[in-house]
């Protein structure tokens, strides 16, 4: 399931809802991304996320489908917010549920790494110096690329947890 929204979300409620009725998924991994209070040595006042409605949902759905193809997942959830956010506010939540923890951890990492380089979101930071668009990070590209060579994940058989 994917959601792109302006409103805040409740992590506990989202986890409970995702796992409700599924007692086979013993491993649930959640990654929460939040707005940091610093940017390039300056105090961050706010961050505004712009996105490309339509393409964002399409790209997130494609990523989710890929994760479900690569790992034996019982459920997945991606929530990404847009609009003006303050330090400490949640930006993104990725949750993966599986019978064993390996698939949950690996798929969660895959989703957040690849989301950063494919989902059409752009951040603008506000500091005392003004507003500036955040540049893409080459380390993020490298993290996303590392999932393409099969070096990570794709465990054919999981260990019991």
């Amino acid at each position, binding site marked *: 399931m994917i959601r792109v929204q302006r409103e805040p979300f409740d992590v506990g409620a989202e986890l409970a809802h995702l796992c409700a009725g599924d007692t086979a998924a013993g491993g649930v991994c959640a990654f929460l991304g939040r707005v940091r209070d610093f940017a390039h040595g300056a105090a961050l006042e706010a961050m505004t996320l712009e996105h490309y409605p*339509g393409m964002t949902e399409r790209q997130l759905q494609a990523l989710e489908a890929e994760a479900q193809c690569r790992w034996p997942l019982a459920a997945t959830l991606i929530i990404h917010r847009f609009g003006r956010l303050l330090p400490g506010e949640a930006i*993104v939540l990725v949750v993966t549920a599986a019978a064993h923890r390996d698939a949950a951890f690996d798929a969660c990492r895959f989703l957040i790494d690849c*989301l950063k380089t494919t989902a*059409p979101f752009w951040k603008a930071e506000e500091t005392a110096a003004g507003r500036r668009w955040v540049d893409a990070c080459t380390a993020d590209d490298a993290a996303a690329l590392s999932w393409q060579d099969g070096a990570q994940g794709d465990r054919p058989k999981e260990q019991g947890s």
Partner: protein
Amino acid sequence: MLTILYFASVKEKAGCSGEAVPLPAAVTDVMGLVAWLRQRGGGPAAALADLAAVRVAVDQEHARFDHPLTGDEEVAFFPPVTGGAP
């Protein structure tokens, strides 16, 4: 009609969020459209003057500048994406 969209810093440089235009004569791919927009001038020409930090999507899928256009696509220009979290 071609739908042209701009996002984030590219939108600010272009001075508009997009427009709908009939496929200009001689334009067969994204690069041809870029050349046409540059020639026309104005904000979009300035936004697309340097493509080093511009990415393109055709019909909401990431694409290359040699992606063919036939006239009814949605073409979006934007900077490299920066979503997700730290």
